[in-house]
């Protein structure tokens, strides 16, 4: 027995949550992210929490390293090896003009320029037959050429490798051998990451994997060696974008599967809270220091996206990544976002962030640009002496000074300028909520908002009013460490897939099902490292013969006989008719087999909050002047941790806790439930 520890690294802060497996007791700490060497920040939060690495059995980790290095173009110089005749696939893309009326459209530039794309004369046919094997000498030649072009990481993607990866695997072997004798340059083959057809999408996925691989590998190696030095003997896991966690070794090979690693944990945590509170429809909002993110959850089911692309929007196709990813919308606007005046005199907030270093002006670390956090401090939403529970104090004078430029430009008082910054930031944040709800045809008025992150509970009251969201929930789990807690409630999970196209009326069908599932099951078992409490779940993708798109249905455990195959076919027909309103005479075809293995973790339990030692009177810590937009109002400030369960606080009020501040506006009230979660509603 020991601690299970979760570490979540965001743009501004590194968060820790630990649970003592024996007592269920929870610890948390929060420190600044150390962008130069992220491991420093992790070691710091361990120190702050008092949890010894040597007494931990598991370290679960969520990061934004992968997405940031893609978006900021900080990845490796990648060399790409393709089938002869197809080196331009990465740049041709799908040739679509997503911005359909814009005749000055720009295609997204490829991550690998043409001179680092090399062809080899190999070929697999659509049915998997190898027409031409891959010649060792040619791969060696390609490797040398890419080495001469200073490629730091290599991606291999051959046509039809989704059906038969033999040639890609042969190329991998050759390259690994060359690496062994010539020094290391990591290599990705597309079939290891995705087995979906469509060469551009698969090539781009492989290229982005190769792009982030050296960074992630270096990071993981550094982190593990630091922790081994500190006598940590437990297992390392990282959050995948699919919502499961996987071993570090796995992530080193497929880092692209962690592209939304950080944000996903927050959605999982939000879903747990929704379940606890009996809310069926929630939007989970994460107000971080560099970004604001939202995800919509209906009936406790997390939504997945099937066409995830980095940098995709209404007018830009972005870069497709074909791995399972929880549907999250994100904008570059957070507590550290800088306010500025553009060339025509308009006030703007973000997307540039002061980050962890130098941070907002009020940190006193050399930042002089006004940030949203400075504005919060200037209007009195934040206390200068209680930031991170008083871990360090904020400089009100520097905050006000930074805002002076904005104030002078618009002839406003400092607090008016600060409030203008806050309103604009809230407007930006409201946009992300619109994107997940209104724009997808959901009415935000039907949802409760679960607000977390350092600034989530501070901005929610404003955007909830604008979108008429009836209820805000601020979880009892420290909202600033909520995502880290989400890691602890995630399960160890792997899913493997095999494409096996066969009609259900084929005489071979039982053999295909049984052989395929047996192969996949043993693969999952080995990925999960033979854990005992493993659950296997088998599904199959089916379609009408002739269709392309498939529907996933459950398959029974055990041997697939004629009866089970027929049953699976029926399940597909009724699901198709339910989703699309029609059935076809056409035969049904099997396309993919999936086996998901889950090792259910021992989740921390949220206990009912005891009223002992807590009272409204005790929790009242001061009255301070707060500028609510039109005037300074003497406002009651409560220590949230001392609020008893089932208690109501009337607005205007400020509820402080170490990792966040919850604002209760005039006309609203906050009520704590029996677990200590807060519900904010209009009176």
């Amino acid at each position: 027995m020991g601690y299970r520890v979760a570490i979540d690294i965001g743009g501004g802060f590194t968060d820790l949550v630990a649970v003592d497996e024996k007592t269920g007791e929870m610890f948390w700490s929060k420190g600044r992210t150390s962008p130069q060497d992220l491991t420093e920040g992790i070691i710091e939060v361990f120190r702050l929490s008092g949890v010894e690495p040597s007494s931990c059995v598991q370290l679960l980790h969520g990061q934004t390293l992968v997405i940031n290095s893609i978006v900021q173009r900080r990845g490796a110089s990648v060399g790409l090896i393709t089938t002869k005749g197809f080196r331009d696939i990465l740049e041709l893309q799908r040739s679509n003009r997503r911005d359909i009326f814009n005749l000055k459209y720009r295609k997204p530039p490829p991550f690998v320029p043409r001179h680092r794309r090399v062809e080899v004369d190999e070929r697999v046919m659509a049915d998997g037959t190898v027409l031409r094997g891959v010649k060792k000498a040619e791969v060696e030649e390609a490797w040398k050429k890419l080495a001469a072009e200073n490629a730091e990481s290599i991606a291999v993607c051959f046509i039809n490798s989704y059906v038969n990866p033999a040639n890609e695997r042969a190329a991998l072997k050759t390259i690994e051998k060359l690496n062994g004798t010539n020094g290391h340059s990591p290599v990705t083959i597309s079939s290891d990451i995705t087995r979906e057809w469509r060469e551009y999408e698969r090539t781009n996925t492989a290229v982005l994997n190769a792009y982030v691989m050296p960074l992630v590998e270096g990071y993981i190696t550094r982190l593990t060696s630091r922790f081994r030095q500190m006598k940590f003997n437990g297992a390392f896991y990282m959050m995948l974008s699919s919502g499961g966690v996987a071993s570090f070794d796995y992530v080193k090979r497929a880092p692209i599967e962690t592209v939304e690693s950080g944000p996903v944990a927050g959605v999982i945590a939000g879903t747990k809270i929704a379940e606890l509170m009996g809310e069926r429809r929630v939007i989970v909002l994460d107000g971080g220091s560099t970004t604001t993110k939202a995800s919509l959850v209906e009936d406790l089911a997390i939504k997945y996206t099937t066409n995830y692309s980095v940098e995709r929007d209404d007018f830009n196709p972005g870069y497709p990544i074909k791995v399972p990813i929880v549907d999250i919308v994100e904008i570059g606007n957070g507590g550290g976002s800088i306010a500025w005046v553009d060339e025509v005199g308009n006030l703007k907030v973000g997307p540039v962030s002061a980050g962890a270093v130098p941070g907002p002006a009020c940190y006193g670390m050399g930042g002089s640009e006004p940030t949203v956090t400075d504005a919060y401090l200037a209007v009195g939403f934040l206390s200068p002496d209680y930031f991170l529970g008083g871990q360090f104090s904020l400089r009100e004078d520097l905050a006000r000074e930074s805002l002076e430029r904005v104030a002078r430009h618009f002839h406003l008082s400092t607090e008016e300028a600060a409030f203008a910054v806050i309103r604009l930031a809230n407007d930006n944040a409201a946009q992300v909520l619109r994107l997940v709800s209104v724009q997808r045809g959901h009415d935000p008025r039907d949802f409760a908002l679960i607000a977390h992150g350092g600034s989530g509970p501070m901005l929610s009251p404003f955007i909830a009013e604008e979108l008429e969201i009836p209820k805000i929930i601020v979880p009892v789990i420290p909202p600033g460490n909520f995502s880290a807690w989400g890691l602890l409630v995630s399960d160890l999970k792997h899913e493997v897939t095999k494409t096996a196209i066969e009609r259900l009326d084929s005489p071979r069908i039982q053999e295909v099902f049984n052989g395929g599932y047996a192969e996949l099951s043993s693969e999952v078992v080995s990925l999960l490292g033979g854990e005992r409490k493993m659950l296997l779940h088998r599904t199959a993708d089916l379609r009408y013969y002739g269709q392309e798109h498939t529907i996933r249905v459950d398959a029974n455990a055990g041997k697939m006989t004629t009866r089970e195959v027929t049953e699976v076919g029926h399940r597909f027909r009724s699901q198709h008719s339910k989703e699309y309103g029609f059935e076809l005479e056409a035969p049904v075809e099997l396309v993919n087999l999936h086996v998901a293995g889950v090792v259910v973790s021992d989740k921390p339990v949220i206990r009912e909050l005891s009223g002992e030692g807590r009272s409204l009177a005790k929790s009242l810590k001061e009255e301070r002047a707060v500028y609510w937009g039109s005037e300074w109002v003497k406002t009651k400030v409560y220590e949230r941790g001392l609020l008893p369960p089932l208690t109501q606080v009337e607005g205007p009020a400020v509820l402080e806790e170490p990792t966040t501040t919850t604002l209760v506006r005039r006309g609203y009230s906050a009520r704590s439930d029996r677990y200590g979660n807060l519900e904010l509603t209009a009176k």
Partner: protein
Amino acid sequence: MQTRLKTDPFTISIVKNALISAAEEMFTVTARTAQSPIIYDVLDFSTAITDHQGNVTAQATGIPLFIGIFDYTVKGVIGKYGLKEFRDGDVIVLNDPYMSGTHLNDVGVVAPIFFRDALVGFTASKGHWLDVGGMAFGSWGPGRTEIYQEGIQVPPSRLYSAGKPNQDLIAILRANSRIPNAIIGDMEAQVAGLRVGNRRVAKIIEKYGLETYQETIEKMMVDGETLARKRLSSLPHGAFHAEDFLDEGAEDGSPLPIHVHVKITDDAFFVDFTGNSKQLPFSLNTTYPATVAAVRVVYMAMIDPHLRYNQGVVAPLKIVAPEGTIFNALRPAPVSVYWEALTYAADLVWKALAPVARERLTAGHFLSVVAEIIAGVNDKNGEPFALVEPNAGGWGGSPDKDGESGLVSFADGETYASSVEVIENRYPIILDRYCFNTDDGVGHGEHRGGFGIIKDYRMLNSSAEFTTDVNRSVIFPWGVEGGKNGTGNYMVIIRKGREKVRVRKVSSFKLKKGDVVSIRTGGGGGWGDPLKRDPSLILSDVRNGFMTARVAQREYRVVIDQSSWKVGRATRRPRRLARSKMGSGGPTRV
């Protein structure tokens, strides 16, 4: 316009976005349930929602050309039945090009939306069916002299009556197609899209009330028109004119002169095609609705490409095209390759305005949709197959950037070039290569044109038929301000690795196993004097193999040292090489 709204603006924007997402969901459902790659992989279809008079209120991002045509499609249906004849569950099918635009292959389906017995609007979908009969597999192609050779004509007809399928009509459609299972499957997919749209709209009205719904769509139109007029007033005003040539059509077989007059004022955008050739006995004529739809694309690009399209937005656009001309063909003119005259109609407007709309437009692009049909009966399973697809090509340079390479034509939008792996899985074909067409090059310029593509299809089947009809093959994409013209589109048939037949127009050419059809699209026109080009860009082009050091020296007068990757200026002006209009390639077969 000052109207007092009963509904708050927040609700209006929710209803508006819910409508748009309904149209997008229609699109997704159709793509997901379709049978043919041209629908599910290429996305050669669009979906829309209209008000009860056929004015478009919301549409999915798809083919801009189809988006601009839905009003004609739905109004054609209303014109036949009147507003009183519809019942809940009706679905009307039509493909009459003179009424609803494009060609017989593009089949529209339209469903009335009811809310408690009141007709509140229509959902519509238009998609390319692989074969609708006619003289050759795939239905469209050159050599037709009247529409009767281009397939079955379907005037607005009930496909479903109050939810019941019209089996007689479906049997007729089946009997007239060489690939009946695919087209009926795609038809079901289109209808599935309409059903989802109808359900979503009814749900929206149920939730927010009919009054709010109607107020929202009225406001969308009014806002659209107000914004369009506002943008219009900031465009360069005046009269503009452009001339060009269709690759053929003059009586002696030479290129056919075409022209346009454009006038932009504070509140209108006039386009006049008066004086162009009368309709031709060739398949390339376009009907009026299709011409309008094409010009609407350039109009949208000019006023504001990010305005949400609806009927209000295009209200200031007025287009004159006299009846019986190539831009307003009347029955029985053949129109199966309508996109050729149509793209030239829009390109003329573009060419007239490019010099004054530097922020919005580029030099000329490859223009033609460059589509082909490769069809036959699969040796392996005896089932018919038809590969039909548009191809990508090179776009023109502009004052601030080079032209894009390998991008679909302006008439296509969120339209995807086929995936190699999807094609190889679905057809008895293997690709030898799919790459940029660096052989034929681009229009040079300070900002050069983008590159076209080369795609080589090798037949694995014992036989197949090949059809194509390509323009911008003789008269190349135009350059601007000293930029050079681009290069042409064409295809090459390679037999036994040797025999090369260069084709521009061919119908049902018999292919044998091992034959290769090589699709080559042209490079875009350049913008500005090539001698002003930034040398580092020339260096990058040579390093990336987009052009040889020799071409760089000849066209840009720079010397690239390929061992150190450094640039120098050429000291003497090299002799210009005489170039034929057709670039490289073998004999022309027409």
